[in-house]
């Protein structure tokens, strides 16, 4: 059986999770649920980014005894996407936290977390 490489698997997984998260954002009425969905979406993006940065049969971009400095360019995976993901994770948490702050404030204002109840502004 010729299975696809893990980078493709995880990429596919990421895309499915992305869609699932998006679906949750669109479909769930509870604000906390929306935020949870967003966090799923966020994770899925990280997964996608890491998997497209992966190069088969290479090792982690850490220069130690296993990988010499001189061979690094041909032996390790591209470190840049990983650096991006690190940043993205931090940003994602920040945004999740901000969303939760909003959720809390919204709840304090109106005593509910139903997003349909916050439609005073329209048109």
């Amino acid at each position, binding site marked *: 059986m010729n299975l696809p490489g893990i980078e493709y698997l995880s990429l596919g997984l990421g895309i499915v999770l992305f869609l699932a998260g998006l679906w949750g954002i669109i479909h769930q009425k509870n604000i906390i649920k929306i935020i949870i969905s967003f966090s799923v979406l966020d994770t899925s993006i990280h997964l996608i980014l890491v998997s497209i940065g992966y190069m088969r049969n290479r090792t982690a971009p850490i220069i130690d005894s296993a990988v010499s400095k001189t061979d690094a360019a041909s032996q390790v995976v591209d470190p840049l996407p990983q650096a991006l993901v690190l940043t993205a994770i931090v940003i994602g948490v920040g945004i*999740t936290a901000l969303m939760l702050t909003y959720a809390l404030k919204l709840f304090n204002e109106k005593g509910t977390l139903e997003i349909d109840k916050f439609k005073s502004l329209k048109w």
Partner: protein
Amino acid sequence: MSYTFIVIIMGIIMLVMAFTAIYHKNLKVAVIASGIISLFASVIYIFLAAPDVAITEAAIGSALTVVIFFYVLNKIRLTDDTK
């Protein structure tokens, strides 16, 4: 090849968790489910030769996020006695 099977199994679990996270009525369960997705993702990162990302994801994406969620959920429950 063994990695592949592990990834497939983890992927299935993650999808189930995603379903749970989105559809489970209990918010706490949902939060934990989303945390598990994050955690499993960090395992996959290791397979994908990204250990540093894996560590960050586990610590921040999974642990810290869940903590924040619970903090806020707590606050909401405190003010809302009915739930």
